[in-house]
Each structure stands twice: as C-alpha cells, then as structure tokens.
C-alpha cells in the first residue's frame, strides 16, 4: 500500500537533488532547470496531500504554481539571454560584479 509518506519522501529526494544541483552546477541554465525540479517536487507533495486529505486545494495550488513557473521561465530565460549577450557566458561564477 502506497501511503502519503512515500510520495513525500520521493518529493524530498527530488527537492534535495534540486538543491544540490543549484549548489554545485555553474551553468545558469542548468541551475534554472534544478529550480524547476524543486518546483516539481513541491507540486508532487501538494497533489499527494490533496489526494490523501480529500481536498481540491492542493491541485488548484499546483495549477497556480505552474502558471508562476511559466512566467518565471519566460523572464528568467530572457535574463539569461541578455546576460549572455553582454558577457558571452552563462557561467555564473563569471557573473560576480554585484559586490563591494
């Protein structure tokens, strides 16, 4: 029998993978994809909770999350394109002028 905990553990694993990805990769686009992975992991736990608690709110929340993710992807990728156009790189270790 698959319980909610199974889904939540899977969600936690995927989320952690996303976190580690953000911390170790340097390609801005891959970091962005890791963020999408974290969003997906959270979505999964939302839907799992909705199912096991007999509620629709989880599913609706996921719907809104997806909308936000779509908007974020559009703007984020536009920023990456703009940065690349200026600095000829998407390696975020080369983009470090925002400091003292």
């Amino acid at each position, binding site marked *: 029998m698959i319980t909610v905990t199974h889904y939540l553990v899977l969600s936690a694993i995927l989320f952690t993978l996303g976190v580690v990805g953000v*911390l*170790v990769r340097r390609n801005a686009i891959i*970091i962005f994809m890791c963020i999408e992975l974290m969003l997906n992991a959270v979505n999964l736990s939302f839907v799992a909770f909705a199912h096991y608690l007999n509620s629709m709110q989880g599913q609706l929340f996921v719907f809104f999350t997806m909308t936000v993710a779509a908007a974020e992807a559009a703007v984020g990728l536009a920023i990456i394109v703009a940065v690349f156009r200026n600095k000829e790189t998407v390696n*975020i270790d080369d983009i470090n002028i925002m*400091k003292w």
Partner: protein
Amino acid sequence: MLNLVGLILLFPLIGTAINGLIGKRLRKETVGYVACGSIGLSFFISVLVFCGLLLLPPGERLFEKQLFSWIESGSFKSTAGLQVDPLSSLMILIVTGVGFLIHIYSIGYMHEDKGYHRYFCYLNLFTFSMLLLVLGNNFLLMFIGWEAVGLCSYLLIGFWFEKKSASNAAKKAFVVNRVGDFGFALGIMLVFLTFHSIDFTEVFSAASHGNFEAGSFTVTIITLLMFMGATGKSAQIPLYTWLPDAMEGPTPVSALIHAATMVTAGVYMIARCNVLYMLSPFTMTVVASVGAVTALFAASIGLVQNDIKRVLAYSTISQLGYMFLACGVGAFTAGVFHLMTHAFFKALLFLGSGSVIHALSGEQDMRKMGGLRNHIPVTYKTFLVGAVAIAGIPPFAGFFSKDEILLESLVRGNLLYWIVGAVAAFLTAFYMFRLLFMTFHGVSRVEHHAMEHLHESPGNMTLPLTVLAALSFFGGFLGIPGASVINSFLAPVFGGHGHTEVSGAEAGVHHSAWLSSLMMVVSTAIALAGIFLAYQMYSKKPELPGKLAERFRVIYKLLLNKYYVDEIYDALFVNPIKKISVQLWKRVDAGMIDGSVNGIARLVGGFSNILRLLQTGYVRNYAFYIVVGCIFIIIFAVLGKVKF
C-alpha cells in the same frame, strides 16, 4: 518725553540693519545719510530726554522704562529695562553728540574706502551697544553692551584686516579685554549671589541700607573684580597694552571708540556702582593708585613716541588714569566731568590728527611732518584749541576738570596723589605741545610726493572739528569751581548714599577757597611750564632733543620701547600660554581626541573589511547560505515540537 528713551537705541540699530544688510547695493551717499541720520535722530531724542529729565525736580530724576521680561530661571530674574538718570542722560548726550560729529567726519575721511558700508554698519552698531551699556538698568544688560562694544572695537580695529598688523591689533584688543571681562562677569555673578538681584536700583538700595559694613570682604571682592573689567576696557595698568595698538583702526574710530566713548565705559561703570565702591575703602585705594600710576606711566611713554596717533593713544590712557584717580578718591563728579571734557578735546585731537594724516596721504610719523600750519589752517587752529584744552590752560575745558581732579585728590586723598597727578599734568602739556610743534611748526620735513597732494580737508571734516573746538572751549564752564552746574546735576546719583561725604567735600571746597585759588594758579603754572619747555626743545632749539636722547640713552630707549611691557607680557603670559596651547593641540586634541575618534573609525573600517569578504558576488555562495539558513529554520521552528 522720557518715554521716548527706547527710540535712542532703536535708530542706530535700524541704521546697522540697513547698512549691514543692503548697504552693499546702496550708493555711498545713501549709506552716509542713513548712518548719520540715525545717529542724528538718536541725538535729537537724547536731547529731548535730557530736557525731560531737567523738568523733573532734582530729587526725582530717575526714570526706568521696563521693555520686557528677559530671563527668568529659578530665583534669577532679569528684565530688559532702560534707566535714565543724570549720569546716564549725560552719557547718552556725549555718546550720541560726539558720535554724530564723528559720523559726519567719517563721511569725508572714509570716502575712498571700499568697505564704506561695512564701516558705517559697525559704527552704528557700536553706538547702539554703547547706548545699551549706559542705559541698561541692570548689570546683565550693561554687560551685554560692554561685550558688544568690545566686539565692535575688535571689528573696527581690524577694519583693514588685509593688514597683518591691524588684524593682530584687533586680536590683541579682544583677548586683553576678555581678561578684564572675565573679572567683570565674575563680579556680576557675585553681585547676584550677594544681593539676589542684578537690578541697579535694588542692588544699590540693598547695599546702602543693608548690613554691609564699610570694608566688608564680599564687597571688596566684588568691586575689585569689577575694577578688573574696568582696567581692561578703559586701558589701565596692567591691561592697557591693547589701546596703543588699537590705533591701527581708522582714525575716526580711534576718536570715537578709543578716546571719547568706549574706553570711558570703565569710568562710567565705577561711577554707576559708586555705592558699592564707597563701601570698600581698600578698592578705592587700589582704583586711585592704579589711576595715578597709569596717568604718570602712560604720559612718560607719550613723551618720546613719534607716531602722531600713538602719542594721542598714550595721552588717552593717561587721561583715563586721571578719571580713575578721581573716582578712587571718591570724587565721582570730577571723574565724570573729566570724562565729558576729555571726550570733547580728545575726539577733537584725534579728528585733527586724522585730518593731518588725510592731508599727508596717510603719513603718521611726526618726523616727516612739520610746518603744516599754513597749509591746513582750520585743522591747525582747532588742534591748537584741543592741545591747550588738554594741557589745562584756563579757561579751556581741560583746565576746569583736571584742576578739580587735582584739587580733590589733594583734599580727599593725599599729597602723593597730587604730586603724581601734577607731574603727569606737566608731562601732558609737554608732549601735547611737542606734538603740536613737531607737526605744525618749524621747517617742513614732509616727503616730496606727499607735499604735492597737501590739502585742507573738506567741509564735512572741518565742521565737526570746529564744533568740537567750541565744545572744548566752552565745555569747562559747566564745572566752574564754586558754581558747578554739573556738580549739582550729578549730585542725586552720587549723593544718594553718604550725603555727608559729598557735602563734606563741597564744604572742603568752600572752606578752602584760598586753596582752590592757589591750586588754579599752580596747575596753570605747571601747564605753562610744560608748554614752555616743549617750545624751547622743539621750536627754538630743535637739536636739543637729540642731544638729550644721546645723553640719557638708557631712559630714552626704555621710554621709546614702552618700558618693554609688551615684551614682558609676551614672555610671561603670551608665549607660555601659546606653548601650552600648542601642546594641548598636538597631544590632547590631535593625539587623544582625534586619535580615539579616528581609532574607532579605523576599527569599524577594519571589521568591515573582514566582513565584506562574505559578500563574494557568487550566487552559488549565497544559495549555500540560504540552504544552511533553511536547515536551521526548520530545526528551530519544527524540531522543538517533534513527537515520535
């Protein structure tokens, strides 16, 4: 009419405001009209007030006008009020009257100066301050005026501040005056502690009816502290050194501030506080001794000075010494009388010297003058009147006042005062006529280029000279012995306390009419002797002074260098204080205070330098901190409630 007294103060203040704020944009004529007009109006009101006072019966000639409540703090109360009595009404007449004439004179004298409006702004401000000083009805208001005239004096001595010597002289005057004012301020505080009031009326009635015995310690301290202020302001030993240097200012300023009015503030103050001073015989002795010594001391320096204004400056110090001598022996009337006549003839002499300097395009050294008699006749004639007046030849003004002081010092004081005073009178006559002969008589030693521009001063300069000459001639008739108008006029101010003393003195005068007459003859003889000697030395045998100087080389050098007082002060006070100040500046200020402030700043800066390394600019780095933060937040927020 007495109610108008506030206007006397108001006009000069308006003049100051106009010339100070918009004077730069006004035409020179307008500036002059505003300045002279304000003082003229002020003089007019002063005359009205004076007449108003005369209409009252002699016993009730005291009018106080409360303007507003000024400071109230705990038990301390001070109102801003004006007091008109015979003494202050006489003073306002002198200040506005002589001030008016000098303002008119200044229009001609300062005409070429680019700081024209600034000059008149200061001069009006000075008049306002001086009037405040003499009209204030309490010690604090008087002190305000006292300080304000000091400020104006500073500003006007340093009027040509581009000149190093002028700005130095201004600083010197300011600092030396502060020494005296320090004592004066302490005296006022002590007055408040002793009498719980600073109003003249209250303090003096408390002092005369209170339980203060003559010679009480507190009163002695108060009066001595106040006298310290007077020595500063009125240039007495030991604080006189600033006045000769003050001649760096424009000549009309020397005439108004450093001869006629401001420097007499000390005499006025002592006369005003006569009740307190009469309670302390010791202080009176000090005042008289300081006055007598100063009179002789300054006169002796005046013998050998070659700068025309410096001779007059030392003469002023000497004459102020006379006034203090008079006050010190209790003859306040004589002191104030001499103050008045001195204001006339010394203003005249200064303005005359200014006219000479003007005619010679700025030359002040008497060795480069001579024979000017025919070139500037009006100046010469008026100057002669002034010189005769100060030398004390009857019936000129100086004769009566000086004679009265000498007489009083003999009657009330002792023979020593009289001898010192008489010698000083002899010296005065000598150096004044030395000045006169060197400047106007003999062969001309004027330099060629100055000779070409030699001219008599314009009318607005000679008119005040003429008026002042008339005053110097007639002014003395107010105080003819036996029928002294000024004596009876001032009696309510000085007679309020010990009536017996004044009447005793008058009785003394009356009872020794022969002494009085003898004194007149003696002092006239002394003055004539001085003049004769000067004539012998500087007109008949011009080679004599040089020989004498050669013969008494040491004394001559000593006098020429003013007894080395400036050098002694420098060595004793100025240089040590400078050294200590430099040490304080370098060690305490730059080292400790700046060091600690800068040290803290450097410490913070150092910490920031380390902390800013956290800000790497790498996004992954920040993300790492976010994750660490998240872990801690979860631990703190959730794990505390975990139940397994």
